[in-house]
């Protein structure tokens, strides 16, 4: 009896392995020579916004620059990154290390580096400009670098950090954006198919309330803290004199630093890495609008730019004719029948 069961199980196992082998083979077959993206996007964009200014908000600028560095490292070109930054700390008179921004007391890595392209700087960081960037309703003389030229195959990472409250986020102590404005802006993007999928990430106090009103499809949102909770900074640098990074961003970076372009890490792995005990607040994930299962979504689908490719096999033979001027005759000059088929004429 037991022998029978064992034999049955063995057969089952063997069958299972064979089947899984076959399906694996089919999977790779499908990938072959063609498109590699499972997500269906062809380009990546990032909109990174730091809504604070002034020296004591050093950490918000460091947060944003850290994410900026990460997405660039993972392959999103500067032309596809809209960076909105008050940008007043690197050259602040209080900065003991001029022209640098660090996100760690160890000061291992200068985020400001020599290749930072800030698209909206200082007083340009306003609610209006942010909404104009998202919806594409910019003045006709706006340069290309300040436009979000995304299409229906674009995955967009929207990262925001600053001081927020219940369903609002302050912009430079002057104005605020509400969760309704944000939701409407996303809806306008969706109406015109300006995105394929969006990852919205926000690190402020009561951050999770900011994405509560979003109603457009294919948006995945994550925030640092629940309603009524503060988001805390991670640690301060005593030489710089202020906190250098927020906890939520810090632990995101801790995960992202281990990701490279070829990485197969998924967003589920990223979200599972959040530990409320370390972050000191309850990070939230909103995936009800998002259509793909999170364990199938690569981190590089949003934080990187992994392009699809298609091998070019056959090529178009341009004809030998030297005729350059465009006339109808030039078309006909090539009516040379080059097949054995011609003989019947």
């Amino acid at each position: 009896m037991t022998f029978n069961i064992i034999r049955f199980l063995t057969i089952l196992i063997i069958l299972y392995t064979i089947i899984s082998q076959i399906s694996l083979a089919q999977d790779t077959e499908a990938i072959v020579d063609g498109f590699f993206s499972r997500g269906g996007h062809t380009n990546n964009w990032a909109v990174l916004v730091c809504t604070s200014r002034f020296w004591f908000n050093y950490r918000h600028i460091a947060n944003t620059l850290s994410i900026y560095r990460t997405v660039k490292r993972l392959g999103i070109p500067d032309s596809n990154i809209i960076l909105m930054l008050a940008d007043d700390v690197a050259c602040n008179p209080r900065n003991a290390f001029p022209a640098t921004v660090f996100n760690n007391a160890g000061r291992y890595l200068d985020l400001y580096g020599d290749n930072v392209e800030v698209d909206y700087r200082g007083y340009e960081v306003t609610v209006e400009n942010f909404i104009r960037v998202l919806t594409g309703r910019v003045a006709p003389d706006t340069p290309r670098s300040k436009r979000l030229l995304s299409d229906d195959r674009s995955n967009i990472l929207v990262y925001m950090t600053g001081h927020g409250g219940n369903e609002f986020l302050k912009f430079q102590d002057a104005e605020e954006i509400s969760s309704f404005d944000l939701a409407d802006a996303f809806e306008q993007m969706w109406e015109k198919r300006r995105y394929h999928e969006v990852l919205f990430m926000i690190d402020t106090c009561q951050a999770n309330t900011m994405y509560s009103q979003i109603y457009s499809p294919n948006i995945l949102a994550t925030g640092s803290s629940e309603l009524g909770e503060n988001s805390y900074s991670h640690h301060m640098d005593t030489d710089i004199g202020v906190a250098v990074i927020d906890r939520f961003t810090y632990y995101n970076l801790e995960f992202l630093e281990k990701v490279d372009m070829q990485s197969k890490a998924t967003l589920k792995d990223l979200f599972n890495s959040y530990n409320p005990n370390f972050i000191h607040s309850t990070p939230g994930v909103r995936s009800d609008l998002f259509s793909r299962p999170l364990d199938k979504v690569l981190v590089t689908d949003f934080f990187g730019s992994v392009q699809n490719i298609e091998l070019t096999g056959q090529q178009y033979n341009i004809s030998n004719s030297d005729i350059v001027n465009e006339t109808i005759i030039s078309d006909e000059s090539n009516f040379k029948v080059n097949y054995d088929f011609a003989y019947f004429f």
Partner: protein
Amino acid sequence: MEENNDKIRRLIIASFYIVILFGLPLWWKTTEVYRAQLPFAEIEEWSNWEAFDLEFPTLFIIYVASVESSTINFANLSSNLENSIASRYNVDNFKASNEKYQKSMQFPVKVRSLDWNNWRNGLQYGNLEKLNVVSENGQYILYILPSTNSNPNTKVLVGNQRQAVIEINQWDIKVIEKTVSDLIVSLFMPEQAAIKKFIMEPLSNSKVELDSMRTMKYSPQYQVTFSLMNGDPSDLLVNWDIEEAVNKYLQLFVNKISVISNLTVDSQIQHYARLTFEPFHKADENYFYLTPELLPHFINAAEWNLASAVSSYPTLNFILYVPSKDQSPLYIQDSKGNIMESNAFLIPRWGGVIIKNPDRSTGAHNFSLEELKSIMSIFITQLRGLLGVHDVWTEAKHALDVTTNIEFVTPPNTAVTMWEFDSLTRRRIAENIITSITTLKSLSQLVTEIPNMVVLDHIQTEVFLALDNLAKSCANLHNNQYNLALYHSKKAIELAESAFFDPTMVSMLYFPDEHKYAIYMPLFVPISVPLLVALHREIKSFKENKKAIK
């Protein structure tokens, strides 16, 4: 005295109320959001497919050789062909729920057959020049001849202009009918399927579809950038005769396609263009290779400066990559491990890449015009794919049955045949019309949903003009005037987009009623308290007076 005082007091109170009475409408008027009236009903009709019929008519003129020995009657050929093609066009995957589309979307076919008496002289060896050339999109000429050799298969030769020659092996009416309708269906079915699909699921972007992912969205202009990327200039300097090559090989294509979209071409050379990763090394044969898994990381986005700020139109990048010495020669392997002959790959909606390993012995290399020919032909293949030009032959070959030999005249130096160009025109017309309608629909939806959004007069004008152009485009399609239809569809999409993306269309910030109360309360409550109290007192004293008089 008492009386007088009372009167003056009442006048004062009344004057306050009069000011408020006149002020209220003024306040109402001045705080109103200006909204020009948009033709919502008309837009709704368009988006429900009630306002228009989309027709893509085609006319086939068939020259049938008059063979002396034959006694076949060709009188019914035209009508028979029309019927059989129409019935085959309509057998497809339409579902019942899509009837409304089926009713408004038609591909009418007309066939005219003519006797062809001098067919023996009409065609000369290797030359179709003597044949009539039709210069209208949507009109095609087919020449039907009896076969002169013993080959059992029917042969079809498709020209670059709008004509084809069919050599029939069995001179029989049934065979002729079947061959002609097979050919027409095979040449036009893929395009129709694409148009129908696009119309029924205009925005299905969740699916992974090769065609829709590869082809750029319509834009009136694209910027084409050719970049020569040199891995390491310290041991090899490179240059190329790109301007001559573009003039010689690409210019005709650019001219031809400019009816649909303009292409501006520029070029650049960049040095020290390193890869972000190390290619695999095959030690025994001493070459380096890239697998398809590595290719998505090929473009070094952080260091290669490919972004152009010249315009906001979409950019198509074409890269000729020369690897550094320590990575040469560099080849691309396909998934089966074979080295690709073309050494090239395409990045959907982005551009194309070719890797070349020039001779390094002299320390410098100039890609001559002759060398660039094969390179440009690959770039043109990729450019055609990116712009949505579909190879007529690959599509038709799949659709025809095996007993028919189909051949194509060598492609013209415009790099696009009239068949392909017509097909692209029709696809782009359909795309533009549908995109304009969905854009207008989105616009009307947004304006309805967001009551705080200002709608200025010029938006209204643009919407009306867009609708007007849509109507004209559909009317021109109906009359077989594809060029005009294309022109109006381009206008329509341009106007619809400019209305949608107008900078004034940013809605005011979210401003709910609670916020309004919060703003007006501190102003109006303190003002209204003395006013109301005064009114109350007056009424009270008025009543008391009345009582006293009684």
